[in-house]
């Protein structure tokens, strides 16, 4: 499968948007300008970009507590995202959700989730609905390696396979569950070894290589869309920042050398080098893309700064849905 020039630029743009948004968010958090927690996706850009680049606009994804990258990759609006992180009324959740509940259902992004492992069952529900409605939509559950030790993941995988649903399980194996290395919490190394236990195929890809991720995602999504059922993609990846986005906290749960080694395989820079080597892009063109998107980030920060906070009378608005139907009765 050869990746077109247009698609290469598309994947590159998704990754650069994530990198710039996340690094800007990190700087704002360190300056105490963002309330709440922040978990940055820097280093893992190839996974969300490679997968979301294989989806249609109306396909669904569920996310994790490290969810900004997924929303950006699905086409999230910088202004509304930055406003949400700042708790402003113009944000995606009107400033009341923050980083870990950010979502845009119009883009099929069904939400980040502060509960580890909680996204996978939601994706199964979306997949069930998609098949029921027969519109050919696919759902993708993004989740981390640590969440596969949670019951919700196992129930989701089992139900998806038992019902042969159009879903892709996209595991971002970054080797750490918060501050704990993977080998201290599970006896296996490859999450993909769990796939066969539910009766679905599973594959490992280099999560620092957007083309490798995209190739697998295209196949998995097409398989799901054509009625082939669930599959699991395990992307071996790494987050450059700590579990959350604040640097220089003196946390010593992983060696600096390890971080440096992974950074040598940076998904964006290595991809840019290949694009230039292949004659698809020039350094000048790449620099233009970065400059353009940096400007978008500055615009988003300004938009968020200029936006109002939600007023106290809005505190209960959108918290509970207004039910228009009651089960067993006509609306």
């Amino acid at each position: 499968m050869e990746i077109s020039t247009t698609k290469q630029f598309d994947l590159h743009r998704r990754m650069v948007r994530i990198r710039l948004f996340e690094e800007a968010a990190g700087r704002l958090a360190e300056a105490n300008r963002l309330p709440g927690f922040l978990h940055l996706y820097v280093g893992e850009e190839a996974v969300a970009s490679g997968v979301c680049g294989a989806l249609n606009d109306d396909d669904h994804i569920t996310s994790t507590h490290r969810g900004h990258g997924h929303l950006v990759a699905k086409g999230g609006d910088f202004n509304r995202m930055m406003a949400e992180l700042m708790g402003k009324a113009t944000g995606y959740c009107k400033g009341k959700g923050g980083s870990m509940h950010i979502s845009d259902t119009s883009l099929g992004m069904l939400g980040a989730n502060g509960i580890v492992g909680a996204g996978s069952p939601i994706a199964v529900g979306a997949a069930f609905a998609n098949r029921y409605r027969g519109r050919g939509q696919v759902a993708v559950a993004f989740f981390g390696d640590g969440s596969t030790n949670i019951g919700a993941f196992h129930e989701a995988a089992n139900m998806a396979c038992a019902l042969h649903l159009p879903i892709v399980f996209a595991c971002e194996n970054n080797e750490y569950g918060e501050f704990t290395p993977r080998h201290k919490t599970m006896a296996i190394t490859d999450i993909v070894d769990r796939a066969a236990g539910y009766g679905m195929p599973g594959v490992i890809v280099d999560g620092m290589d957007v083309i490798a991720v995209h190739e697998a995602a295209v196949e998995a999504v097409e398989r799901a869309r054509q009625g082939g059922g669930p599959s699991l993609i395990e992307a071996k990846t790494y987050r450059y920042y700590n579990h959350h986005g604040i640097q220089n906290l003196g946390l010593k749960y992983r060696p600096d050398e390890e971080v440096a080694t992974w950074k040598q395989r940076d998904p964006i820079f290595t991809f840019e080098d290949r694009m230039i080597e292949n004659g698809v892009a020039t350094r000048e063109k790449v620099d233009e893309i970065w400059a353009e998107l940096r400007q978008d980030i500055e615009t988003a920060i300004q938009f968020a700064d200029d936006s109002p906070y939600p007023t106290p009378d809005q505190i209960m608005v959108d918290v509970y849905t207004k039910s228009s139907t009651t089960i067993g009765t006509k609306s």
Partner: protein
Amino acid sequence: MTRTASIVGMIVNPNAGKDIRRLVTPATHTSDVTKVGIVRRAIVAAFESGASKVLLMPDNHRLAERASDRIKGDIEVLDMPLSGSRFDTIAAAHVFCQAQVGAVIALGGDGTSRDVAIGWPDAPLIAISTGTNNVFPSAIDGTSAGAAAAFVASGAVCLSVVARRSKKVVVKIDDRDKSLDDLALVDLAFINSMFVGARAVRDPHTVHAVISCVATPASTGLSSIAGRIHPVGRWETGGVFVRLGAGGRKVRVPLAPGSFTTMEIAEVRRLGEGEKISLSGKTVLAFDGERDLPVSAFGTVTAHIEATGPLLIDVEQTLVLAAQALMFDETARHISEGNHVY
């Protein structure tokens, strides 16, 4: 033949048998538990059959430690830095050579055996398939492999009787200011692609040419192309060159397990041993079935086939000879130095 010890070396590639082909074909998934089981059986059988020591390559999955857990015997997991890549196999094979290992068991695909051959060109090798389109390694149980390795390592069965020198594709890449030497044990393919990506070669339209030193219709993957029009056996001299393109025979080929495609053959010709072939221009080189190395438009790749590959041990023949020499009798269980019979 004199040996100071009967050492068997074992390498298990933790990454084999899990790539994208499980998604697009019915290829087998080989779990870590499966690999650990094979190695564990091999270790037990090696000690049962006279090995004095087992050396294991460490790996990021800790398969070596898990496979050797609670087995009595002189077992050593090499103390070496890990990269988590194929370079661990290359380094371990080199250490095995230095340590005068008598036989190496390698679990993986064609690429794993290739890496052993890079680290130790003359390795006495039993290659067990845990990969995808495996031509060089075979489906051998660890029990049989461990026993055969021990008989060879101890000298009880003579290596020169049960092992044959395999072939390899010797590759030289000149690309601008870089010059690289490499090898393949089955095939070298020229792929019209921009990226290494998910590594496996899946799109038949991207295959430009293949140089195979082993090409059998009983295989799957790139070597099966030549295998279905001009077979070349493992022990025949030389190999075969195939160029894909319009105008020739159209052949049905299993490019992956359980997955058939039509490939159009523009050129096929026999390659004699040592006969050089050069191709220039932009390509991605696939060694033993996996995209591995991009070559620029200024690059030239020169390759030839020669019989300087690893010494491939025939497990069945080894065990037959051992049986004929009564080595499985209770009284022969402790095979001593110099007690070899062939």
